[in-house]
């Protein structure tokens, strides 16, 4: 079984968010990047578990500059066999999907996994675009993935519940919480990561259909009105008369 896992980077969840150049660009100063949590904790780890029980290979793929390599090495340390970096700035999701699709078309992958979303741009869109460009089924928000022969059984979130779906290879999935447990790289993995092959390939021509023109920090709440616990009942009046939400 050949599995491809899409790996992106994201600022650490506690990073301070700031913008520069007149609010047109994200200020990376002092920002620590991590593997996007959904890609690492769920997509990659489940891919590795499947490979360990059923055999096969796990390849990672990332669209990004050289600064992405530390992220890819972390995926190697956790257990990926090899990785691809497509050397371009991932500014538009369609552009990224077109890059990954071009590579995946040649690879005969059985399962392609993305994360549920990147925690910086929160798009949840790469997996769907990729599946369309590859003309494959797509199951988003998968919380469980099992494989028997060349059939995947997937549990995924739908509005108001969950669904269990069966689909033959090849298919594209986006991975959400529940699919696997976080795996901490061990010393052997970290050593082995150094010798694994990271292929760098150039981007292909593809349109950038969207671009971010500017950013604004969301306004926090100005003041919190404190209500004495003894007088908790008065909250309900305030919610009615002042906040007008009940």
């Amino acid at each position, binding site marked *: 079984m050949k599995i491809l896992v899409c790996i992106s980077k994201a600022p650490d969840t506690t990073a301070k968010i700031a913008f520069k150049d007149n609010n047109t660009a994200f200020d990376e100063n002092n920002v620590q990047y991590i593997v996007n949590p959904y890609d690492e904790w769920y997509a990659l780890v489940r891919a590795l578990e499947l490979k360990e029980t059923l055999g096969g290979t796990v390849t990672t793929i990332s669209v990004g500059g050289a600064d992405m390599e530390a992220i890819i090495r972390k995926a190697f340390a956790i257990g990926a066999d090899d990785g691809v970096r497509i050397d371009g700035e991932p500014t538009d999701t369609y552009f990224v999907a077109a890059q990954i699709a071009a590579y995946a078309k040649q690879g005969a992958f059985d399962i392609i996994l993305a994360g549920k979303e990147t925690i910086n741009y929160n798009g949840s869109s790469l997996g769907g675009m990729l599946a369309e460009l590859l003309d494959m089924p797509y199951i988003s928000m998968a919380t469980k993935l099992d494989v028997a022969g060349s059939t995947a059984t997937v549990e995924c979130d739908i509005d108001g519940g969950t669904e269990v779906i069966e689909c033959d290879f090849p298919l594209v999935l986006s991975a959400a919480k529940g699919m696997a447990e976080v795996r901490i790289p061990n010393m052997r993995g970290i050593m082995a990561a150094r010798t694994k092959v990271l292929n760098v390939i150039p981007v292909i021509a593809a349109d950038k259909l969207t671009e971010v023109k500017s950013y604004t920090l*969301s306004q926090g709440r100005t003041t919190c009105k*404190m209500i004495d616990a003894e007088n908790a009942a008065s909250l309900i009046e305030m919610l009615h008369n002042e906040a007008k939400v009940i």
Partner: protein
Amino acid sequence: MSILVYTEVSKGKIKKASLEAVNYAAHIASKTGTSATAIIINAGETSLDDLGKAGASKVLHINNSAINTSDSQVLTRILNHVADTEGAQMVIFSNDLTAKAVAPRLAARMKAGFVPGAVDYPNIDGGSFSVNKNVFSGKAVATYQVNSAKKVISLLPNSFQVTTDGAAVAAASFDVPADLLVSRIKVKEVKRESNELSLPEAELVVSAGRGMKGPENWGMIEDLAKQLGAATACSRPVSDIGWRPHHEHVGQTGIAIRPNLYIAVGISGAIQHLAGVNGSKTIVVINKDPEAPFFKAADYGIVGDAFEVVPKLIEAVKKFKASQN
């Protein structure tokens, strides 16, 4: 030329989020001199009047039991076919779980620029089109410019007040060619959380965290929610240890919600929790620790023991409801 809106039925009614999307499409249509066309698949006996009332000039009902509505590939082919037939350059969704699977696919198929989770009306100026979307889990807003002629926009649920003061239009049935319906996925089982208020659509939410000490203490949280007509939610550790079902978990790794009212009981307010709730209009925090970070993100705060405060609130809501009748 028209703007397509994908809509759905849930529990015998057009979904509220779908009506928001119709309102949104009608607004853009009025600005651009076009009209909004709502599409609905297998609506059964449900009245489709609300679609016209919410602003659709045309309602297309695709009634065909052979459609596997769980397959994003099939829905994409159908919507692309309708867009072609209607000459639509723009398709609007509500950014719910169906849209998360279908909208990006459709965008790639149409080669349309896609903005997932728009929070405002777009800014349309001559040929340029831009719209705001939350980024960094709600910590910032980014203005996305769409460069392509075709566009797919999904709207963050609960971003707009729904209005249905227009006139109903009769639904026209629309047939799709059978070859679009080939599906490779088989649905083996559907598990629905029956009767509960859907959390992403709820206007009022009562949520609780580890401060509740154990699942046996959730009775008062459910009672407060019931008295208010609110949905219930929880912090991540609470669903991780199994005190509450997984689908109630809100935050960065759970679902993001933006109700009118979010009441957080015994939740510390970690940044990853706030990421899922800070779009709420009004936030109330009840915590025994005056230093809990959540107070910094709240509109109303009560420092106190949940086990004393919540029962008082339940009584106060009962009195309030009685006075309203």
